[in-house]
């Protein structure tokens, strides 16, 4: 039964081949065939996921005598089902959405090939299949983004995507080569077993192999998941068809989180890499969110929103919450996919009604005018800070009593608390006839979300990493010494509370800024409006390289 996973991955390939060969004969009817094959593949993968949920043993399934191995395990079945679910929705949406576009059949060929490449990526049980599918995802995405062959802009940004993905391929290839040299096999299962048995058996240039491989895998994940400095392609690739944007933001960009999860046995034996991953994720989350808030183009704002979310996902890996990253990937995928696919309806609606409420929230957010607060501020601040903390602590105590022994979990708790507090604070500021009712509802929704998140993330933890010792190792690999941890928590708490303090102070004393502060604010605004000059630097660098190339050709002529 587990061997069905091969069929799951091959069905989209068969569909692509069929459409390529018979698009001329069946015309636009080929789309129905593609949808049917994706549906069948989705049903089969759901069946396999059910098997995995019922406790079927993980298996490595070799294909004949070749080096190709496919994995049937919780991670592969879960992700295959998610990919096929999103792909099916995108297929259904595209049947009518792409009907007027040139290259209709070719679009479905590419869509099926992309689905197959993603499936092979998540079920790969050997390094070669993983490298090949990882590489092909970038190539196929390039052609999907360039579906409109008339558009130079679409191709320009598709090229940015391709080159970033290619840069991300290189560390994965290096990691694969190093692992093969060390263990003389391409099989992931054998390599991971060897690493678990003896993690420090190999050195590379005096460094631990696990550290080097973990760093390389992390770098490959950064490029694929648009982490800061490798993110510029994501907000700009909006000229591709909407279904491709949906697929990209809901599925493809999450590959970094998958890769880190797949190499979890390597990461638990690496010393500092998870901390670096956390820092990169944190920076990405902050920069992505900051840039999202300052965009006036809704599509770019969505792109930066995805970047911020990817930062959170990578950050979760950095604190050892690997399974939570997978849950985040799934939840964000569904959410962002829905947003992209409904973008057309929203734009249509906005043509009739701009939807901007001219109320207190509008004047506060857009016109920067403080609202009059009539309720006791200190009481509200106490409610705002205390309620999320109480909900989070109790929810976690219900799931795991030793919760406070895990630093990673405390970091999540902290983020949950800050987010919850901000939610209640923002809700409290909104105009309502009965503000207590509104705050009550927001607390209730927070309770539902937190309980949902805690139980679901716990369920993901049990499903993906059933071995409690392995789960404990994941968290302990992300731990830092207690003193540094306490200092960091104290600093971040101070920053958050100062932010609230500044907001309170400004509310009480209006918006008068000293001249110096205004200049600083304007410089900061310029920096953000140029998106921290990252794209400009890359453009300069690539132009310099092209100039060198062209000078070399002039000097050497045909030599």
């Amino acid at each position, binding site marked *: 039964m587990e061997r069905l996973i091969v069929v799951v991955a091959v069905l989209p390939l068969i569909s692509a081949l069929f459409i390529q060969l018979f698009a001329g004969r069946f015309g636009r009817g080929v789309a129905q065939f593609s949808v049917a094959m994706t549906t069948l593949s989705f049903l089969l993968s759901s069946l396999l996921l059910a098997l995995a949920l019922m406790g079927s043993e993980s298996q490595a399934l070799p294909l004949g005598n070749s080096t190709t191995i496919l994995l049937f395990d919780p991670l592969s079945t879960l992700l295959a089902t998610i990919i096929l679910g999103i792909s099916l929705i995108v297929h259904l949406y595209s049947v009518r959405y792409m009907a007027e576009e*040139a290259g209709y059949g070719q679009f479905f060929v590419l869509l099926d090939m992309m689905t197959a490449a993603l499936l092979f990526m998540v079920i790969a049980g050997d390094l070669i299949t993983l*490298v090949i599918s990882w*590489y092909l995802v970038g190539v196929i995405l390039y052609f999907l983004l360039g579906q409109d062959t008339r558009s*130079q802009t679409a191709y320009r940004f598709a090229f940015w995507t391709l080159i970033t993905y290619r840069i991300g391929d*290189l560390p994965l290839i*290096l990691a694969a080569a190093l692992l093969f040299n060390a263990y003389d096999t391409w099989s992931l299962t054998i390599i991971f077993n060897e690493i678990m048995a003896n993690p420090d058996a190999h050195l590379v240039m005096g460094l631990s192999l696990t550290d080097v491989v973990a760093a390389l895998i992390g770098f490959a994940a950064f490029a694929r998941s648009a982490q800061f400095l490798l993110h510029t392609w994501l907000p700009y690739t909006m000229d591709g068809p909407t279904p491709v944007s949906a697929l990209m933001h809901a599925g493809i960009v999450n590959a970094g989180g998958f890769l880190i999860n797949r190499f979890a046995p390597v990461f638990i034996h690496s010393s500092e890499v998870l901390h670096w991953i956390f820092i990169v994720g944190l920076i990405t989350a902050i920069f992505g969110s900051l840039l999202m808030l300052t965009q006036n183009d809704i599509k770019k704002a969505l792109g930066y929103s995805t970047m911020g979310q990817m930062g959170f996902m990578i950050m979760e890996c950095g604190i050892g919450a690997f399974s939570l990253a997978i849950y985040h990937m799934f939840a964000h995928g569904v959410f962002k996919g829905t947003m992209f696919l409904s973008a057309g309806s929203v734009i249509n609606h906005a043509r009739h009604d701009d939807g901007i409420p001219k109320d207190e929230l509008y004047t506060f957010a857009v016109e920067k005018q403080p609202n009059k607060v009539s309720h006791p501020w200190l009481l509200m601040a106490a409610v705002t800070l205390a309620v999320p903390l109480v909900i989070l602590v109790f929810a976690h105590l219900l799931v795991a009593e030793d919760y406070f022994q895990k630093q990673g979990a405390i970091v999540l708790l902290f983020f949950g608390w800050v987010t919850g507090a901000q939610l209640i604070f923002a809700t409290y500021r909104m105009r309502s006839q009965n503000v207590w009712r509104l705050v009550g509802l927001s607390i209730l929704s927070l309770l539902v979300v937190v309980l949902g998140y805690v139980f679901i993330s716990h369920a993901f933890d049990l499903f993906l990493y059933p071995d409690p010792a392995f789960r404990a190792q994941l968290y302990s690999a992300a731990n830092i010494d207690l003193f540094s941890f306490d200092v960091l928590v104290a600093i971040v708490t101070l920053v958050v509370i100062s932010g609230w303090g500044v907001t309170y102070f400004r509310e009480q004393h209006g918006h008068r800024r000293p001249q110096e502060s205004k200049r600083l604010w304007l410089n900061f605004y310029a920096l953000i409006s140029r998106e921290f000059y990252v794209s400009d630097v890359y453009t300069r660098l690539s132009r310099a390289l092209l100039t060198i190339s*062209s000078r070399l050709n002039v000097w050497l002529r045909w030599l």
Partner: protein
Amino acid sequence: MPELFNILLVSIFLPLFPMSMVFNAVLENVKPNWLRVLLFILWPLMGLLIALNNNLVIPDWVLPLALSTSFLYAIRMLTLREVNQWTGFLAISIWSLLWLPIIQGSSAELMYGFALGMSLPLVLLVLLSAGLEQRFGAAYTGLYGGLARTIPRYAGVLVTVVVAAVATPLFPTFFFMLDMVVETVSSKPLAAVVLLLIWLFWSWAGTRLTQGLIVGRGSNNNIADMDITSMYFYSIVLIVLMVGGIYLGGTIL
């Protein structure tokens, strides 16, 4: 002395800069297509034949020079616009890397297999370039563009051939590059990094070449697209290359 002479002779066929000028000069002056096809097939095979039959002892300076040559031509490809010359530069960049398996003492059959597997996409590119010259008077990227609209079948084949030539899975050049990285990463990590950069530049150059040809609104002129028979010919060769790539990949990896 005869050893050095042999190495110099081989460095013409498995080009090492500046001996690479010989191939460029020959390519520049050979006009008939069938002769160009022969040139692309036989040139690296000649190099391998001489190198393997003379049991050359390869000096240490050959590896850095081979990598530098490949790197140099990979960079030069980025801004080259003439398709034929671009193909010639890619050929030099690929063939110079054949020194690596010679240095490592790989089996002769494999080397011949790879030399042929990596040259065949270049042969297809030469034929496609000739087709463009016939239709537009010149095979230049960025000159006319819009081939995906004007001659979609031709554009599709052209893109696939370029994809095959720049070491994309599952074509032979991909497995060759993967094997070379595996062979060098532990003993000569710097060489592995240079190999990966060369690989990256191939992709970059290939993308620039195809974008300049296929993207755009296209002309309204009535230009003949590729006929079905030719399309099947190219498709079959590409499938054979893919199968060959998987076979060669399975043998070495």
